[in-house]
Structure formats: C-alpha cells, structure tokens
C-alpha cells in the first residue's frame, strides 16, 4: 500500500483538473470507472483494516513478549502483598505512664512500649527515649537507683541523649534510695519539679523534652516507711516536630547516611550522633605488612547488649590489619538494636532464633555461628571467634598474623587465644612473650576449621544439655591433650559486667585488673620455640638458668621474690599427681590471680611475672620438670582454709568466666 498514493485532499485545484480529466476520459466507460472507484474504496478500506490490525498485533505481541519474558523469573513469593503502613502524619502523641510498687507501663498512642510487672525485677527508674519527630522508641533503660552507683549510670545515659528527644520516666518499687544530688539535679534541669524531693518509696512519672518543655509530671508520696506511695497514672500529649528539625545536617556521604539511619532509630551512643563533629564510624587503621590473617573470617558472637557491641566493634575496627569484609556479627535473637549497631559500621550481621535456654542457648548460638562462618567462607582454614564484651588490642591481628602458622603446622595445638587467664596487672609483663597452656582460655581465639568440622561440630552438645560450650571444649574428650598458645599480656580485655555468668562483684574481682596490651606492632619473640618439642627445650633452658627461691619464706608475702628486675625465679609446690591442685589453688588465691579453676598450666608448670621477674611454679612430683628441683628444697605445701566454703564456691562459679 506504500505505492498507492492518490493525493486528492492535499492539493485541491490539481485534484479538480485530475478529476475532470479522468471524468471526461472515462465518461464513455462508465462501468469501468465505477469498477475502479469501488475497487479503490475497497482497497482503501482493506488498507485501513489491515493497518489497524497490524498496529494492534504488534502492540499485543510486544506486550506479551515483555510480560512473558519475565514470567520465568518471578519470585515465588510474588503474591504476598506487603502490607503498607499508613503514613503517619499525626502531629500529636498520646502518652500514658504508670508508676506503682509492682507494675510500670508506658503506652504511646495506645501501644504499650513498656510493661513490667515481674516480681523481684525491674526495680528503680525506667527511662524511655522517644524520637521527637516519629514517636519511635529509641532507647529503653532501667536504672536500679535503689542500689549504689546506678544513678551515675543514669546521669551518664541522660547526658548522652540528644537535645530535643522526648524522655519518659517512671519508678517501679523504689528509685530514690541511692539517687544522689547530681542525678536529682540532672532531672531537675530536665524540668522535673518533683525530682529534688523524691524520697523513699515515692511513685513518680515524668514526661519531658530534653532541653525543652515539660509535658507532664505526677507524683505520689509514700505516707510511711513501710508503705509505698499510691500508684500514679499520667496521661499527656506530646507534640511532634518535623523530621528535618529532629535530624542533624551532616554532609551527604555514604557514611553519614548510615549514621543518620542509626541516629534516627536509637539513643544512648553519645557523640556518634552529635550534630557537630560526630565521632567517626570508619577507622582505617594502618594495614599490616604481610598480614597472614587478612583472609581469616572473624565471627563476633553477640546477644542483646548493643552498647557492648558498639564498644567492641569500635575497638575491633581500630585494630591494625583488620579486614571488615571478613567480619560477621552473629546476634542471638531478633533484636533490632544490635543489628542497628552492626549496620552503622557497615558490617554484615546474622540473626539467630534462640534455641533452648541459659548456657545451652549460648552454646547453640556458638554452634550456629561457627557453622555459618565456615559456610560463608568455605576457603577459610581458621576462624577468629570474638565476643561482644571484649576490647580488642590494637595489635590483635599482628599477634595472630605472627603466630597462626603454628596452628596450621603443629598438630599438638588446640587454639590460639588472645587471653591469658593469669595475666593480671601484677603478673604479666612482656608483650612479646607467648606461652603454651593446657587450658582453653577463649575470650578472643582462633579455631581451626578441621578441628571444628571433623571433631567438634558433629558431637557439639545438643540443646537439651545445659552445658557451657567452653567448659565442654575444655573437657579431655575434646581437647585430647592438645594445648593453646596465649600471650603473656592479653590482646583482649573483658569489659562485660552484665551477662549470663557475670556480675559487678565478679568482674571486679577477676577481670578488672587484667592487663591489656596497648602497644602497637609488638614483634613477638621466639615464635618458633612454641612448637611442641622446641617448647620443652625452651622450658628446660629457662629452668636451667632460673634461680631457686627461698622455700622457707611464705610465697604469699611480697618479700618472697627479691626486689630485682628481669630475673628468672623458680619455686616448687607440692602436687602429688596430675590433678592435685591443692597448693596451686591456695597460691593463686593469695597472689590474687584466677583461682576458680586451674588455668594456664603446662605439664605442672605455671609461668607468670612477679615484680618484673619471670616467675615459674613447678608442681612436684607430678610435673616432669620436678627433676630440676635441687634435692635440698622441700616443695611448698599450702592447705585450704579449714572452712568448707572454698570447696563449695569453686563448682558454683567455675563456669562463670564466659558470659
């Protein structure tokens, strides 16, 4: 039809002449002319129809092709319609706060965001922080201000909360006994009228904006020492601000976008969310030369202690030679806040549905995390295992890089650990020194894949066994006489105070004074001497040059070790057989080192420092090194105190180290 171009409409006068000529010419062939005309009309009609059909066809074909092309590739879950939350344009929040002896609750717009009526729990001041633009809960804390020092923690927390946030306070049971002046003043500065006069067993609720208006406060005095104030219920309205006002205006970079997401969701992380000069979230520590652990995956085992995780990840990401791509954080439970912390640092996080309870839950979480780590990094021969309540030394990876080949080559090794159980401020001295020990310290350690896959994973304690994974790993059936390499000065620091087996008292007694290396790039000495046979030679050499201490003195006394520096001393204690630790436990107790179970031994030998001298303890006659004892020396024997107390305490807290 392209050739068929009658053009009558376009040029009217020409058409006319053409038409006339045609008309006269064909006058006498009327029939023919008519036929032609009809033919032309028909042809035109057909063209039009064909055209329309063609257009429709191509259209449909094109549409079908595209529809079809994607069909195979549709996600199976295609039909699951995601329910969209209605955009909340509401400007006012209804807040309800209840305070009483046995129950507190906070409801925001009818949604309960806090409810605590458990007995013997949750005593003190509950604080909730809301985002002033969205009304979302950004932080929830409870400070047991009935007990000492908790008010200081509260002040610290309140100071970290950004200006403009909405703060909700409510007391459960008792919250004033150890609420000191400073804390009361902080509450007063937030606009509370009652706080300065808050007293024994008063009930109190307060809603206010940090650095701004007060939305409401209610208080019920306790009429007498033995009774509580009447329950109070505060109902108030909070006016929301616009999102722009609630956010900082950081330059638009990828890092700041992460920061923004984080800071609009959670509170209580201090300067990371400051509008002015926020603390960095990328650290770029110096790379390590010849880093042998750059490709070793790092599994961070975490629970719901996001503030710990935050501190831990900061130190980990600041360690020299860290490779953030190899880090995976395993969170036990579907907690949002730890995940927010992980995302803030741009790391990958995996959540794990809790299985079982207590120790078994931790143990199952460990198993899942380790299995997942080796699945995600199938090439890895090792994995570094860390916990969320550890500070990581700046030379952590340097330490591992220098020692990891031992784990690969020496079959008699079980692990490399960054933690020395006996490495306290007064007993550790040399950052370049390593030991071999028969115990598995954990707290930042390297696991060999073959050990995990071939031995541990298949027989890992099942969920119904309430075992500690680390105690299980220390059992002779698992350890099979293999040893771990540890540094004299730990490369990790255990800062966790709250935990499954942890409390403030315990932490203060056993962890606080632990020595932690802060020197970068420590060159380890004699790494080769850590191999099985070399180590024996090394020990014999050490014992050969060691000066035997005066065994008539009391080893607990400071004067037992002369006031020298850099010398090697040896003492001998009684140790009837391999498992006889009676004297050692007493010695450890008086030296104020780990005495809850036996740690840090190697064939009946302990190595530590006293007064900057290397101090060796040999158990006679069980230790093969007993032969080094001069015949004139009688091994020291120390008896446990007559009371049964010690014996009871040991099993009770033996498992307490891991949290």
């Amino acid at each position, binding site marked *: *039809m*392209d050739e068929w171009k*009658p*053009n*009558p*409409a376009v040029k009217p006068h020409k*058409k006319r002449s053409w*038409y006339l000529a045609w008309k006269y010419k064909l006058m006498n062939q009327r029939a023919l002319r008519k036929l032609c*005309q009809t033919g*032309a*009309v028909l042809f*035109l*009609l057909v*063209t*039009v129809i064909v*055209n*329309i059909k*063609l*257009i429709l066809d*191509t259209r449909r074909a*094109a549409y079908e*092709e*595209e*529809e*079809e*092309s*994607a069909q*195979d*590739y*549709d*996600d*199976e879950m*295609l039909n699951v319609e*995601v329910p969209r939350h209605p955009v909340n344009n509401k400007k006012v929040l209804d807040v309800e706060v209840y305070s009483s002896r046995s129950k507190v609750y906070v409801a925001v717009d009818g949604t309960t965001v806090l409810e605590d009526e458990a007995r013997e729990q949750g005593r003190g001041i509950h604080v909730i922080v809301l985002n002033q633009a969205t009304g979302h809960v950004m932080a929830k804390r409870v400070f047991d201000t009935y007990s000492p020092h908790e008010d200081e923690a509260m002040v610290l927390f309140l100071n970290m909360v950004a200006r403009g946030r909405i703060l909700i306070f409510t007391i459960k049971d008792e919250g004033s006994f150890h609420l000191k002046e400073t804390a009361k003043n902080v509450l007063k500065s937030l606009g509370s009228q009652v706080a300065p006069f808050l007293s024994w067993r008063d009930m109190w609720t307060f809603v206010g904006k940090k650095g701004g208006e007060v939305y409401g406060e209610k208080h019920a005095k306790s009429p007498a020492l033995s009774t509580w104030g009447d329950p109070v219920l505060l109902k108030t309205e909070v006016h929301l601000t616009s999102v722009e006002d609630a956010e900082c205006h950081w330059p638009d970079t*990828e890092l700041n976008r992460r920061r923004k997401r984080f800071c609009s969701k959670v509170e209580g992380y201090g300067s990371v969310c400051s509008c002015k000069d926020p603390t960095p979230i990328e650290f770029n520590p110096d790379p390590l030369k010849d880093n042998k652990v750059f490709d070793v995956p790092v599994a961070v085992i975490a629970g719901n202690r996001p503030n710990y995780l935050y501190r831990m990840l900061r130190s980990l990401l600041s360690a020299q030679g860290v490779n*953030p*791509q190899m880090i995976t954080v395993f969170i036990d439970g*579907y907690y949002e806040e730890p995940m927010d912390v992980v995302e803030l640092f*741009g790391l*990958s*996080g*995996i*959540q*794990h*549905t809790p*299985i079982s309870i207590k120790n078994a839950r931790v143990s199952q979480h460990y198993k*899942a995390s380790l*299995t*997942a780590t*080796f*699945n*995600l*990094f*199938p*090439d890895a021969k090792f994995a570094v295992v860390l916990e969320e309540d550890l500070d990581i030394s700046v030379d952590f990876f340097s330490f591992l890089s220098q020692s990891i080949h031992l784990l690969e080559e020496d079959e008699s090794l079980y692990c490399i650990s960054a933690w020395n159980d006996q490495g306290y401020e007064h007993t550790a001295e040399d950052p370049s020194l390593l030991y071999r020990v028969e115990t598995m310290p954990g707290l930042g350690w390297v696991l060999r894949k073959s050990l995990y*896959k*071939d031995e541990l994973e*298949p*027989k890992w304690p*099942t969920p119904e066994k309430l075992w500690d994974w680390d105690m299980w790993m220390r059992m002779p059936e698992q350890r099979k006489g293999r040893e771990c390499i540890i540094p004299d000065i730990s490369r990790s620091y255990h800062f966790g105070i709250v935990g499954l087996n942890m409390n403030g008292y315990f932490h203060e007694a056993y962890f606080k004074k632990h020595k932690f290396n802060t020197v970068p790039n420590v060159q380890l000495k004699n790494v080769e001497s850590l191999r099985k046979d070399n180590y024996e030679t090394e020990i014999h050499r050490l014992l050969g040059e060691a000066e035997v201490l005066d065994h008539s003195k009391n080893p607990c006394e400071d004067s037992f070790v002369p006031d020298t520096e850099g010398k090697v001393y040896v003492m001998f204690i009684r140790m009837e057989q391999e498992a006889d630790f009676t004297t050692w436990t007493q010695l450890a107790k008086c030296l104020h080192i780990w005495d809850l179970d036996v740690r840090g031994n190697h064939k009946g030998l302990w190595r530590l420092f006293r007064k900057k001298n290397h101090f060796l303890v040999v158990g006679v006659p069980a230790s093969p090194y007993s032969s080094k004892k001069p015949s004139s020396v009688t091994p020291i024997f120390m008896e446990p105190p007559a009371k049964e107390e010690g014996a009871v305490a040991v099993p009770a807290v033996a498992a307490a180290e891991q949290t």
Partner: protein
Amino acid sequence: MQKINRNVVLALLSLTSLVFLLFQLCYYKFYLSQKNGAAFSKVRGSQSGQDSTRWHVVRKFLGLISSHNIPVYLIDPLILGLINKDIEQIRSSPDGPSPECKYFCAPRDFTTFALLDKTWKHEVGLFRTAEKMGFQWLKIINKDPRLDGMDDLSGMEIPLHYIFKLASHAIHLVVFYERSGNFLWHGPLRLKQHMDRKFVPFRKLHFGRYPGAYEKPELLLVSIDDLKVQIPKNPSSFLEEMSHSRFLECRYREARAFFQLYPDDVSLDAVEFRKKAKSLLHLAALTLNNLGVKFWLSSGTCLGWYRQCNVIPHSKDVDLGIFIRDYKADIIPAFQKAGLPLKHKFGKVEDSLELSFQGEDDVKLDIFFFYEEDDHIWNGGTQAKSGKKFKYLFPKFTLCWTEFVELKVHVPCETLQYVEANYGPEWKVPVKTWDWKSSPFNVQDNGVWPIDEWDNVIQIY
C-alpha cells in the same frame, strides 16, 4: 449529489489512509528505537551504529568497573564462542592489535560478566558513578543459600545479579559465591514484585534461569577489540561446563520438617558413621573425578540428600550411580590405589554391572552402573548365592549439581521421580530394615545368570 458524496468519501478515505500511513511510520520508528536504542554515533568507520553501540557500552562498563577496582571476567557464551575459534591467536599475542571489531560488536542483546563476591565490597559508589555515566541499573538480591541449611539463621540478603543498561545494550553481571566443596555458585534470577519486568528481556539472559555451579576458573587477561578483559583461560571447557551447570539446592526446609517428625540420631555411632561416610564419599569423588568419570548420588545416599540433607546414619553404605557409557576399566585399580579394595563385582559391562568397595570399618561403597533405554533407565542387581538377577527401573533423568557434605556432586535433577521410583510414595518415612531384593519399589526379577557365567559375573573377594 451521489457522485460528490462518493468523491468526498473517496477523499476522506484517502486522507485516513494517509494518516494511518504516517502513524504507522511513526510507530514503527518508535518501536524500533525502543528495541534497539538511540542510534549511536559512528566511531569505528567500518562498523554500523548498532555494532559499535555494543562495543561502546562494554568499553564504558569496563571503564566503570576498573575505576572501582572490581575484577570481573567475561563469561558471555556468545563472545567466548567467537573467542574460542581464535584462541590460539589471542593467547599468543595478548596485546596484538585487532584489525576490526570482531567480538564485542557481534549482534546480541547482552554482554555477560562474572564477579567473585569476595573480591569486592562497597557498591554504593559504583552505582553512583554508573548513573553518572548514563547507565540504568537493576540489582537482584535474595537469600544467602549458604545460611539456608542452618536452623533459624537469618542473614542479610545477598546480591546475585546486576544489570547495567545503556542505550540498546545491557551488561549482565553475575555474582559468584564460593561454597563449601570448593566451587563457585551463582543464584537464580528472580524478580521481586516491585521490579521492572520490562527492564530488559530477561528471557534472553544466558544466566539466571537456574542457579549454577562452576569450578573456580583460571583467568587470562587478553586484549580483544582494543579492550582489555579477563576471560576463562580455557573458553571451550568453560562453555562445556556452562551447558551442564544447573545447580539444585538441598531442600533444607523440608529436611527440617523431617527432623521435627523424626528427630536426628545423634548417638556416637551415628556421628561416627556419618564421619566415615563423608570421608568415603570425598575419597570416591576424588578418585572418580581424577578419572573423569561422571557419577551421581544414588539409592540411600541420594535419599539422604533429598530427604534430610545429610547422610542417613542407619544406611551403612554409600551409593553412587554411573552411566555404563562412562565405564572405564581403570575404575577398579584406581579405587584400589586409593585404599579401597574391591569387595565384590556383579554382572558384566554388557549387563547389570555393580561394584562394591570396602571402605574403612564396614562402610561400603556401592557403585551401580545404569543402562539407558528408549524410555527408561535401569540398573541391575545380583544375588550371590542363587545367581538371581534383579532389575531396578527409573524414569529418564538428567544430572544436576548440588552441595552435599562439603562436596560438589551430581544428583538426578528430577530427584523426586528418581527417589519415588526407588522408594515409592512413602519415601518420607524412615525404614530401618531394608532388603535390596524386595524392598525397593522399582525392583523386578530379571532371570538367573547362566551357571557357566557365574565365575565371571559373581566375584566376591
């Protein structure tokens, strides 16, 4: 009056047809431009606009990824096919000038590249640069299969495919992940609901219909058509591998449901047996792979994979299948060399061949040879004391890759039919007492071996 009317009608019709003509022209042009993109300025004299568009898009893309230090390599089957023809020449003169645009100008809709997941990290910057360069991009993410097998772990979704579109050409970037079993895996391409289904004709993609499993390729840096690009060192073996790369994920969810019903045996014996079965399977896979003999998980081992993603602890042996056409006489000596003595040999190459090797502590490795007929496949069995023959029938199947006990192995792609043929519709229920002569669903009597052949077809060691 009638005449004028007729003339008017004629004129009107002509006008309409003209309008249609114009419209059609416009539409055609529009359709064409949508299909092939805006015409690109001719740069390379001898090339038409279309051809050089492809070359340009590839060049731009390579510039983009090299500016972000992302190591990609070419896996486009079309181009690799072309390269393969001239591979000797390309290898010998890696920097040689190419007289014409021979490879990257070849007509096609996509160019496919591969990316190893572990060799890169931040993508945000990449996309921004890509947008500035005029690329439109699409990212396809999905669950991480490496965590799928684990109880109740939920990780972040991982990127599986990227598509970068510029003008009429698109770059398909397939992300490869390392899996346990020392191989590379790429995911399927599945569009989520909100995604643009017309972004590219997805159907024409060479990768993504199914997940795939590949060996880690050795790479070669070559310069072709004035572009430096990494390609698999041996394109022909890569292309061959690609044609059989389909990967099946284990049915982890069903396996979990199975263990809910029938709790796993975690006794020391079970743990020990699994360990031995695993190492036996690893040894067998190593031996057969070295010989270049294709094998798959059969019988109980296949059932274990399909039903519970693990070795069945009470199965007491490891079963493999091999097509009789892949039989090699070296198989027996190779296993003996690997420390697995022959325990018995039933049948002969022409009929019902079956080999059994003795692994560590009573764990046996059974190798069944499969015979293909027009409409089915079968393997044979022999009862030693009576010389009775049995025949096990299976519907026809093809082979897929899977991951099993840290090993990349074949299983029948049509696993359900295979397992159902063998174990019947009740295959989901564990059976502890099993008689190979009567229990299988697909067993048939197949006569008796003639006595004079017994010495040959029934060999027990």
